């Protein structure tokens, strides 16, 4: 569950990757790369059209066994080798969310930090950004008591 003060509407994943950050960044802006790594598991193939510049659109189609998943959005921030921010919408799923990917260099290795957050109406977002964490923790304990064995996998960082 989120740490105290950590908002419940956002996930953050940190990965250390044994490659220079230019190579990792390239994988995000190269349609060929996206096509390869965006369809793991039972997905069979993907299409990717990326217009990587501020205000540019992207469209990624992942063909699943049962149905296609269409992801679309607009790039908000494009800082080569450093940061990408884009909106993220999924066909058939209400609401737009925001994805931020940051790239850090550690010698020959790099670190990637991905944050995916819900965009509620801004007023609501502002209000629950503060102070929601404490009650979320209480509920985590409560849920754990209610359903032993189920550990909500929502830790912000691994």
């Amino acid at each position, binding site marked *: 569950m989120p740490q105290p003060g950590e908002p419940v509407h956002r996930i953050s994943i940190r990965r250390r990757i044994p*490659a220079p950050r230019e190579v990792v960044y390239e994988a995000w802006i190269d349609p060929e*790369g996206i096509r390869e790594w965006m369809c793991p*598991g039972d997905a069979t193939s993907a299409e990717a059209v990326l217009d990587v510049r501020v205000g540019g659109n992207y469209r990624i189609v992942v063909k699943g066994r049962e149905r296609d998943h269409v992801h679309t959005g607009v790039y908000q921030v494009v800082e080569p080798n450093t940061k990408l921010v884009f909106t993220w919408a999924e066909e058939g799923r209400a609401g737009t969310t925001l994805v931020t990917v940051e790239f850090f260099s550690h010698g020959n290795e790099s670190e990637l930090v991905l944050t995916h957050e819900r965009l509620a109406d801004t007023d609501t977002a502002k209000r629950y950004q503060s*102070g929601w964490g404490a009650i979320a923790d209480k509920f985590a304990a*409560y*849920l754990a008591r209610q359903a032993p064995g189920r550990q909500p996998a929502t830790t912000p960082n691994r």
Partner: protein
Amino acid sequence: MFNRMVEYSQEALNQVFAAVADPTRRAILQALSRKPATVTQIAQPFPVSLNAVSKHIMVLERTGLLRREIRGREHICTLKTRPLQQATAWLDHYREFWDLRLDALEQYVARKMKARKKGAAAHATTR
């Protein structure tokens, strides 16, 4: 099934987030997470009117976070955690989604690096 649950709850989820944005309502939920209570018991520690607390309780009731049961003249309120489980389902969905893809990204990058090294080695031997 999981997807359907996530899709269904988008709107409901926004309501849940809005409901818990209020400190008084969070305090009410916190108290109820210890044990069910009557409206009067809930209102006691708050420096606001019983009427104001009743309004908060109604908001929580609409989100499904709280259930009110009428026993004689008393209204017993109980915390319901299902809407919160749905809130964490959103997080679980995207955590799994990105974890899988970042695994694939790592493998893709590793292949690129291998090809790069091979290319560099080939370049070195041809010189």
